C-alpha cells in the first residue's frame, strides 16, 4: 500500500437542503476541495471526508438525521462508515 492518499468524494445536489451540509463539510474538512458544477456540488478530499451531524445541526438550526443525506446525495467514492453522529467516507 502506498502512502499516497487517494481521493474520496461526495457529490450532493446544488440546492437549499444541501447548503448546510456543504458548509458543514467545509468546516470539518478544511482541506476538502469543493467544486460547483452544473446542478451539483462535488466535495473531494485526500483519504477521508467527514459529515458531522452536530455541525450540520448548528448550520441548520434544527435536529438533523444523518440519513437525510440520502435525499440530496448524487454519488460518492470510498468505504462508508455511518452512525447516528457522522457519515464518513475513506479509503483503507
Amino acid at each position, binding site marked *: 500500500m502506498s502512502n499516497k492518499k487517494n481521493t474520496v468524494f461526495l457529490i450532493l445536489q446544488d440546492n437549499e437542503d444541501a447548503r448546510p451540509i456543504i458548509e458543514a463539510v467545509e468546516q470539518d474538512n478544511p482541506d476538502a476541495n469543493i467544486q460547483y458544477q452544473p446542478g451539483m456540488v462535488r466535495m473531494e478530499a485526500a483519504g477521508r471526508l467527514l459529515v458531522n451531524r452536530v455541525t450540520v445541526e448548528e448550520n441548520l438550526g434544527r435536529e438533523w438525521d444523518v440519513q437525510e443525506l440520502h435525499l440530496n446525495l448524487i*454519488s*460518492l*467514492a470510498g468505504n462508508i462508515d455511518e452512525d447516528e453522529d457522522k457519515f464518513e467516507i475513506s479509503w483503507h
Partner: protein
Amino acid sequence: MPAKKLNLRKRYELLTRGMGWETTYQKMDDVFPYDSFEGIKITDWDKWEDPFRLTMDSYWKFQAEKEKKLYAVIDSFAQNNGQTNLACASYLSAIKLFITGVTPLEYGAHRGFAHLGRHFRGDGARIACQMQAIDELRHAQTQVHTISHYNKHFSGLHDPFHQFDRVWYLSVPKSFVEDAMSSGPFEFITSISFAFEYVLTNLLFVPFMSGAAYNGDMATVTFGFSAQSDESRHMTLGLEIIKFMLEQHEDNLPIIQRWMDKHFWRAYRLLALVAAMQDYMLTNSPMSWKEAWDVYFVENGGALFEDLSRYGLKMPKYHELATAESDHISHQVWSVFCSLGNATGFHTFLPTEEKMDWLSEKYPDTFDKYYRPRFEYWAEQKKAGTFEYQKGLPQLCQVCQIPMVFTEVQTDPMQISYRVTEHGGDKYHFCSDGCKDIFEFEPEKYVQAWLPVHQIYQGNCGGPTLPEVLDWYKFKPEDSGDYIGSKDYQRWQEWKGADKKVKQA
C-alpha cells in the same frame, strides 16, 4: 416512561438478523437452489452488512420524500412549458436514446434484483436486494413519467419498451443486461452492482445529468438526480458484496476476478453510446467523455482497485485499452449513427463549427487528425446534396453487438479492430480481445446471441426493406434522419421564432 429509541446499528440488526431460519421441511439447497452452482463459497452470511443500515421505515420515508420532490418538479415543468427552455431541440436525441436504451435497463435491473431478493440465502443481502428491486422499478417509472411530457411535443419517444427488444443499436444495452440476468445471482450482482454501478455508473449519470442541467432540461436533471440518490446506495451495496465474497473464502477470488474482467468490459462497451451522447448529442457539454473517464475511471476506479488490492483483486483486464480508447470512441460511435441516420429513432446532426472547436480543444491528439476531416467531408456532401446513408448493414460484434467500428488505437487508429474465432464449425466476429475472451469462456451462451443484423437478413424483422424494418421497430418516418428540417426542428423554430428573425435579417 417511553421505551428508549434504539440506535441505528441495533435497528438494522433487528431487521436483518433472525428473519431467516434453517428450514426443516425442505432442504436449504432446495429452498435456495441458485446460490451455490457458481462456485462462490459463503461460510457465514451474518458477516454481511449494509453500511447505510437503512431500515424499512426509513426507506419508505426517504423514498416518499424523494418522490414528492420529483413529482412537484415534473408538474411545474409541464405547467410552465419547460420544454421551451431547452438549449436546442436537437438535445432531445440524447433523451430519446436514454428512454429507449437506459430506462429498460432499469427495468431489467428491477427484475434481476427481485430474483436475488428471493434467492440469496442471507437475510441481510436479501433485504438490500429487495430495496434495490423497488428502487430500480421506481427509476423506470419516473423516467417514463418525466419523459412522457416530451412525448407530447417531440418525435421518437412513443414506444421505448417495444423498441428495446428490436432495434439494432438497442440490442447493445439489452444484451448487456440479459447477459447478467441469465447468470447466477453472484455474477449478476457483480455485474450490475459492482462493474456497472460502482465502477462505471458515475460516467452515465453524473456528467449526463449535469449536462441536462447545462442544457435547460430541468425534468431530466430532477429524475436523474432522484435516481442517483438511490444509486449511491447501490454502489455501496456493490462494494460491500465484493468485499464480502472476497472475505468469505479465498477460492472466490479467481471467480470474481473473471467476472470483474468480463462485466467491466461489457459495461464499458455499452457506455460507448453514452460517450457519443455526452460529446455530440448534448448541445452544450459540461465535460468531455475523456475528462469524465479520467476523473471517474482512471482516478476514482484506480483508488477503488488500490483499496481492493489487499484482497488480491486486480484492475480489470484491458482497462489500459479502455483508457487509450477514451480519445476515440465518442467520435467513432457518433460517426456510425450519422452514417446510418436513416435508421435511428432519434435525429442525427453533424457537429457545428463551435462544437468541432470544442472537440479539438478536448481531444487535441485525435479530433483534428482523425475525425474532423470526416465530419467536414460529410458537411460538404450535405451542402452539395450528394450525401448518402450507408446502404448495407454493418457487421456486429458477437458479444457487445456494436457495429465493428472500434479501431486499433494503440497501434493504428485508422485500422478497424477485428477478431475472429471458430466454434462448432462456424466463424464468430468480435470488436476486441475483451469481447473475444468473453465468448471463448462461454461460447454456448454467446452463439445464441440475437444479433439484429443477422435477424434482418434471416427475415425475422418485418421484411427485407428498410421501411419494413423501421415499421417493425414502430419508428415513424418523422423519427429518423437529419435534425435540420425534421418535425422537431420545425416545431422548435415556430416556438423560438427563429424563422421570423432570419427573414427580417
